[in-house]
């Protein structure tokens, strides 16, 4: 099992390196309003990397009694990575100059409440929606067709209410 776990962790570290490069590559082109989200994503990626690296160093101890725990932790870090890869990276890769108005509006909305003032915001192409998760950035869904006008922006007030 040790060898399998080593292989899994090596593969995970490789994927994380690719993702880190990809995220870092967006840094020069994203809107300033997305900078906090970019910083969060880079830190999150680094935390996942540290998690996988720590598992590898425990595996190198050759201590059989902790193999079950390392298997569980490898699975946990992998699940976390898959979710990050699927949900949290997209808003950076899809970022457009035309997002700036929405992002400024959302940042202003967040700044009005002490509980959300420091929560990074981002946008994704989706129906009007929000995943309100404690201690994580708020990603607001906005249909592609609604991204170039003011008509639907008030719907964010409703979504913001879910976050509160």
């Amino acid at each position: 099992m040790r060898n399998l776990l080593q292989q899994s962790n090596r593969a995970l570290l490789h994927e994380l390196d690719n993702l880190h490069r990809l995220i870092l590559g967006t840094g020069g082109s994203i809107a300033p309003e997305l900078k906090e989200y970019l910083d969060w994503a880079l830190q999150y990626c680094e935390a996942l990397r540290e998690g996988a690296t720590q598992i590898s160093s425990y595996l190198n101890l050759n201590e059989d009694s902790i193999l079950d725990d390392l298997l569980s932790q490898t699975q946990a870090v992998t699940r976390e990575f898959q979710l990050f890869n699927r949900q949290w990276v997209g808003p950076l890769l899809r970022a457009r100059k035309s997002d700036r108005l929405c992002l400024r509006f959302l940042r202003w909305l967040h700044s009005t409440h002490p509980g959300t003032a420091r929560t990074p915001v981002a946008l994704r192409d989706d129906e009007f929606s929000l995943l309100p998760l404690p201690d994580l950035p708020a990603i607001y869904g906005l249909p592609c067709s609604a991204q170039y006008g003011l008509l639907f922006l008030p719907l964010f007030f409703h979504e913001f209410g879910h976050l509160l």
Partner: protein
Amino acid sequence: MSTDWLAAQSFHQSQMLLGAINALCIHTKLELAGRKVEENPVPVVRAREAIATFLGQLDKAVAELESQHGGLVFGKDARQRQLVASFVEARHDPRRSGSTLFHDPLPDIRRLLFSSKVKDHRLLMNCLRDLRVLLEEHVQEDTLEILGEL
């Protein structure tokens, strides 16, 4: 707003707990194996506190659920209720009847977290292993809900 957020919140809570259980188990087992480990490093202290808080909350929720005799329990989200129900179900599962986690009162299990006796550490490792299985089953459902079949 999508209802995925319930699964996503549950996913993050379970993942946090699994990380805490694994950190505490690894540290304790290395200690039991006679390996040189740092005494009470911050991540392990935090892990112990997180598990203690969870067991305290679980104890209250289980008592509440059992007092309702299968009726509705208000004030908790559906995924939290499901986790508590899975725990109660496991208590009545003959295949899990040998487990201290499902047999002994939860406050007793909670006390094991802060014991300095080696015997208690070994017992705690078995309890955390069984709790981890329960949480992994739970997080698997959340993962399917959020990410689909991987």
